[in-house]
């Protein structure tokens, strides 16, 4: 099972994402300028400032050649995980519902937070228990998930909210404490917390590994060994 981790010129977390994936399976970097996904089984769009994000977070990155491939992969049911800036890119690309707005505090916030697993039956959380709390850090300036009321209602009704900030832990003013949402089909998932920075107890928590392990297990079930 092989993860592909997208690398934009301004990615910051791609190396950590690669390392995290390697703890669960094999992994390779996918250069933003190359079309095609080189046969990977799952794609991670990591955090960072893809193209500097000077216009609007994620706005420019979604048009890169690799993202065209990621979009087709997603439309065919491929597993795509977007973390932080990657989440923003997937929203901008219309692969996930809603948008990520500047934090209510207007400031960058870096904090270890608890998130609650709302859905443990997804490709991204099957190694977790429902209702379980995971300790994963956030770090962003624009992480306030928002969607117009009708879309937000659909997302809730469809059970697309996979992770919520634990009560009192919402770091950015996100609507309904949403920390991570999946697509209606469930194969694309984006979250603001950084599971790739929570893979070693020495650096505060290894809870993030469960997401990568979930993807591996899910893909292993789909892809004959």
């Amino acid at each position, binding site marked *: 099972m092989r993860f592909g981790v997208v690398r934009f010129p301004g990615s910051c977390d791609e190396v950590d994402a690669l390392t995290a994936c390697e703890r669960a399976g094999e992994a390779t970097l996918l250069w933003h300028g190359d079309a095609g996904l080189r046969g990977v089984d799952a794609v991670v769009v990591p955090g960072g400032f893809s193209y500097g994000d000077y216009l609007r977070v994620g*706005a420019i990155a979604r048009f890169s050649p690799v993202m065209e491939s990621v979009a087709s992969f997603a439309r065919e049911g491929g597993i795509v995980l977007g973390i932080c800036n990657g989440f923003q890119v997937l929203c901008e690309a219309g692969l996930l519902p809603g948008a990520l707005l500047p934090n209510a505090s207007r400031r960058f916030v870096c904090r270890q937070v608890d998130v609650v697993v709302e859905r443990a039956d997804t490709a991204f959380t099957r190694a977790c228990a429902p209702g379980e709390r995971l300790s994963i850090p956030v770090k962003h300036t624009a992480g306030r998930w*928002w969607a117009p009321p009708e879309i937000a209602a659909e997302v809730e009704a469809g059970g697309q909210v996979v992770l919520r900030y634990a009560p009192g832990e919402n770091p950015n003013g996100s609507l309904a404490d949403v920390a991570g949402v999946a697509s209606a089909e469930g194969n694309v998932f984006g979250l603001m917390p950084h599971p790739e920075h929570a893979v070693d107890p020495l650096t505060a928590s290894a809870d993030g590994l469960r997401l990568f392990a979930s993807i591996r297990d899910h893909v292993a079930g789909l892809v004959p060994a």
Partner: protein
Amino acid sequence: MRARVLVRPKAGILDPQGQAVERALPALGFDGVANVHVGRLIELDVEDPDRLGEMCERLLANPLIEDYEIVLDGDPA
């Protein structure tokens, strides 16, 4: 042709930057200010102004959360 695109947060969406400005102004002695919103201004030379709408929809604004307005040189504000 020189063009301006004004992008602003959609009504009803919390605009923390606008609020911060609204709070800061009275503290500096500027009273009588309300309803402050902060958005983006994009100015550019464009050969074919007819394509500006498309540029806004695809890149310059996110229509889910932002409204935009195109002002061409000579238009009223």
